[in-house]
């Protein structure tokens, strides 16, 4: 819940539907304000559900959906929420959104829901979600909050998809469950990297991604 940075936007009268400000809201979290690489939030699920690309994608979509729903709901209620119980109100809304996603997944993507198991429910505790509610949705109108939710969700999703793809390729030689490393390589003595299947592999990989992105964007921690 430690929401750092994240500049808040003063509501402008008669703002265009997709002005520069809106574009910035949705694009910033992808790189310059990426919740994982720069704010280092939501790490636990990024480690746990990224052994396969398809699971990572579903997890990413779930987080985007939860953040969009919760951000809009909180933004609509922002002037009504008593400030002394705002955190618990945010939790109720996030939990509601997470249960909706969980139920829908169980009905329409049973196999993936089974693999994600408890981690869908654990989106509730994902710091990115609460962080954005507290830092953005409490001060901004619904449309911008929706964009902010989608933007931050995407920022989270693309990172875990990269981690998921690398782990699946090097950990089990597959992508989307289909073998992509040719059998000839295995016959020639190539073996899958067992570390990639386990959490420490994801940790190292995530560290490398954080480092590369920070280096590319010239980010310095102060």
């Amino acid at each position, binding site marked *: 819940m430690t929401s750092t940075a994240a500049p808040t936007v003063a509501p402008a009268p008669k703002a265009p539907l997709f002005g520069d400000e809106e574009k910035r809201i949705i694009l910033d979290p992808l790189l310059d304000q990426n919740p994982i690489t720069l704010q280092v939030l939501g790490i636990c699920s990024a480690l746990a559900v990224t052994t396969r690309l398809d699971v990572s994608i579903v997890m990413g979509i779930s987080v985007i959906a939860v953040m969009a729903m919760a951000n809009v709901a909180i933004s609509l209620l922002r002037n009504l929420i*008593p*400030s002394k119980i705002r955190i618990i109100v945010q939790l109720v809304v996030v939990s509601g959104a997470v249960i909706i996603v969980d139920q829908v997944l*169980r009905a*329409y993507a049973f196999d993936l829901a089974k693999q994600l198991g408890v981690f869908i429910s654990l989106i509730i505790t994902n710091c990115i979600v609460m962080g954005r509610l507290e830092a953005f949705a409490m001060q901004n109108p619904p449309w911008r909050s929706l964009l902010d939710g989608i933007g931050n969700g995407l920022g989270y999703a693309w990172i875990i998809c990269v981690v998921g793809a690398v782990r699946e390729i090097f950990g089990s030689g597959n992508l989307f469950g289909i073998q992509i490393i040719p059998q000839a390589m295995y016959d020639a003595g190539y073996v899958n990297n067992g570390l990639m299947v386990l959490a420490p592999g994801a940790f190292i990989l995530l560290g490398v991604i954080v480092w590369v992105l920070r280096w590319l964007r010239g980010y310095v921690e102060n």
Partner: protein
Amino acid sequence: MNTNSNSYVMAFTIGLCVTVSSILAVLATELKPTQLAAAEFDRQKNVMMAAGMIENGDPRTREVLEALYEKQVKRVVIDTRDGTVAEGKTVDDIDKLNADALEADPKDRMAFRMIETAFTADGKLDAIILPVSGKGLWSTLYGYLALDADKNHVKGIQFYKHGETPGLGGEIENPKWTAMWKGKEILNDKGELVSITVKKGKVNESIESEKRHAVDGLAGATITSNGVGKFVRRDLQAFGTYLQKK
């Protein structure tokens, strides 16, 4: 309006909770049938995987697989007291049958059990699929053990629900491990039920009884392995009368 007064906070909280729970209740009720159908399809897939009728990740569509199950798998109720098939009974009758049996003899808990029988395309009995479940390390494991029509050789084993650690106890799902079960025997030469033992470490191929009745344990998952061995034996014993009836 003072949004910090106690009465406002109370009213707001109640309003929020009622709204959220109503939305969730409606949603859950609406999705229930779809979820149950999805879970039932998943169970059917696992039965067929245990029986070796389909591979994991079979690319065929859901309709095709459901039709296959419908056509080639039959659920039957077994009376475990004497090992006979309770003709004409279905899954809906089990609770009533068991209640009656329990009343007749308090020792007969779960006298009637459901099993599945798989047939080949030309109608020959191909596999008998028994439900097995019990404790691992963290969770209850649910699976299916398939036997050949001779009620002795294992055809396959498949776990469809568990909460073991992925990579350790979770390896019970690993096809390489489940493949080891294939061809093992649950009866010894005298026809007594010996079940399958999950060894700690590797099976010693030079010992005849191990070669026939044991599989390798899972590295780093001793408690899960022991659990599997234990509840497979227990569940096979529950079907003992049926299995020994030729």
